């Protein structure tokens, strides 16, 4: 007694195969859409900006005259802000991750903090800008300085670094902990000599990706009032500053067509910096990925 009608199976066969092919095309189109948009964007930016990109553009300050305008102040501003953001966010982020993974007792409070760090990573960046404005610029009277900008950016990317560092720590097998503790190592010795060496590649990758996000962020720095026209290089963390994305944003907002073109040149510089940082992150991940 056959429960399956072979004829029916035959009739449905073509339909099923066609459906499968259609879905394949749909998914392919979905992917192509993103790539196409990226290609158009890159084409526009590069075709507009590349002719303008020269050494002078990198070494000139902003100017009223498009042909003289450059991004020196923005490049140095970005470097200054990162010089504050990178150490602060990495030390705080990695420290938080180590505490949460290694030291914190498993209880409601810890779970609450864990959950909210992930939530924090999803808070819109402009909100961090408002926080920076209230706390750093006004309350702590740092003004619109590199310091205030850098600290605001640290807050923005710290949750990302915490999550990446937690992942890196969690990927270390239990037997490594056992080996270390069984020889009488203390918690700190285990962290320093087993956990950190094994987790640093992952932490570094996450930190670089987080920093590259910070470099591209505009909103928080606009909110705390970073300048858009700066004709000098910041000399200390108390000076006011501008950064690449703000400079670009400022140029695209101007009525003259020429400024739109130099904005494209600025975007190329920013993109190259970001791609460079992301490649370093990928390189570190591939080179040091541990096999246990």
């Amino acid at each position, binding site marked *: 007694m056959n429960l399956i009608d072979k004829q029916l199976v035959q009739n449905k066969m073509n339909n099923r195969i066609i459906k499968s092919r259609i879905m394949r095309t749909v998914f392919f189109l979905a992917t192509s859409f993103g790539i196409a948009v990226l290609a158009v964007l890159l084409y526009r930016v590069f075709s507009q900006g590349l002719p303008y990109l020269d050494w002078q553009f990198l070494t000139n300050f902003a100017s009223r005259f498009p042909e003289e305008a450059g991004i020196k102040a923005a490049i140095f501003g970005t470097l200054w802000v990162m010089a504050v953001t990178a150490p602060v966010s990495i030390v705080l982020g990695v420290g938080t991750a180590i505490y949460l993974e290694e030291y914190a007792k498993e209880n409601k409070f810890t779970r609450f903090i864990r959950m909210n760090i992930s939530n924090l990573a999803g808070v819109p960046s402009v909100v961090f800008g408002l926080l920076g404005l209230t706390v750093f610029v006004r309350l702590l009277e740092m003004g619109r300085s590199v310091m205030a900008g850098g600290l605001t950016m640290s807050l923005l990317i710290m949750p990302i670094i915490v999550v990446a560092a937690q992942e890196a720590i969690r990927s270390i097998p239990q*037997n490594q902990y*056992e*080996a*270390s503790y*069984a020889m009488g190592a203390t918690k700190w010795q285990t962290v320093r000599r087993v956990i950190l060496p094994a987790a640093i590649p992952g932490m570094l990758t996450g930190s670089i990706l987080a920093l590259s996000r910070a470099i591209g962020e505009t909103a928080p720095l606009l909110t705390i009032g970073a300048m858009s026209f700066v004709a000098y290089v910041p000399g200390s963390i108390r000076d006011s500053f501008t950064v690449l994305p703000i400079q670009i944003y400022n140029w695209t907002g101007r009525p003259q067509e020429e400024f739109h073109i130099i904005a494209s040149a600025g975007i190329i510089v920013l993109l190259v910096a970001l791609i460079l940082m992301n490649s370093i992150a990928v390189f570190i991940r591939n080179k040091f990925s541990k096999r246990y």
Partner: protein
Amino acid sequence: MTNAPENKQVTITNTIEPDKEDKKTIYSIDNFNLWYGDNQALYDVQLDIPVNKVTAIIGPSGCGKSTFIKSLNRLVELVPSVKMSGSIKYNDKEIFSPKFKVEDLRTSVGMVFQNPNPFPKSIYENVVYGPKTHGIKKKKILDEIVEKSLKEAALWDEVKDRLNENAFGLSGGQQQRLCIARCLAIEPEVILMDEPTSALDPISTTRIEELVQELKKDYSIAIVTHNMQQAARISDRTAFFLNGEVIEYNDTDKLFSNPDDKRTEDYITGRFG
């Protein structure tokens, strides 16, 4: 390439040499209970582990053998939900007393695990991990420790020319002997072994078994094993665990030839487990 362990002239600096003859037991476990959360894993465990003997712990999967051996160096406390009651005395000192530091205990009790777990470091760095942890920094002493430990673990001849290579490049059996060397490097009194050969091929297993026979001259060894022939071959005393209880603890010869308990007999004759 078997290398005869001709290197047994090394004297182990045990703390109190003259005392050793009288002191028959190194561990005495009394009325020891252990829970993971609400599940009780060990019930009223009561046994003494003798000095300079091999004590085997056998039993079916999930009977609490590994839990028990990890209680002896308090490594079981890595599980957050664990609760314990009763007493484990090491050299007549209660290991759970607040005065007895866990780091101190683990400095004189080494452990070898089921799966080889070297650190992703060089062979040399693996061996000196323990001594460095305990604050020994002189390069000359560390070099000597490496040579001595690797010789004791019967690995020296195979690796002496590549001490700076990563330990992950070794075979499974070599990695396990490296882990034994790493454990010997802290000059422990006791070596706990948690199924040390279950992940190894028969040849590596034989080598580790021979090694255990050598090591018991200088160390007290407790070994968990799944393999009853192994327990019969290498141990002096055997404890049979079932569902978290010690069913029988006896001289190995006695336990395997003429067990007191019916359940032991059933297990060793293969009727269950």
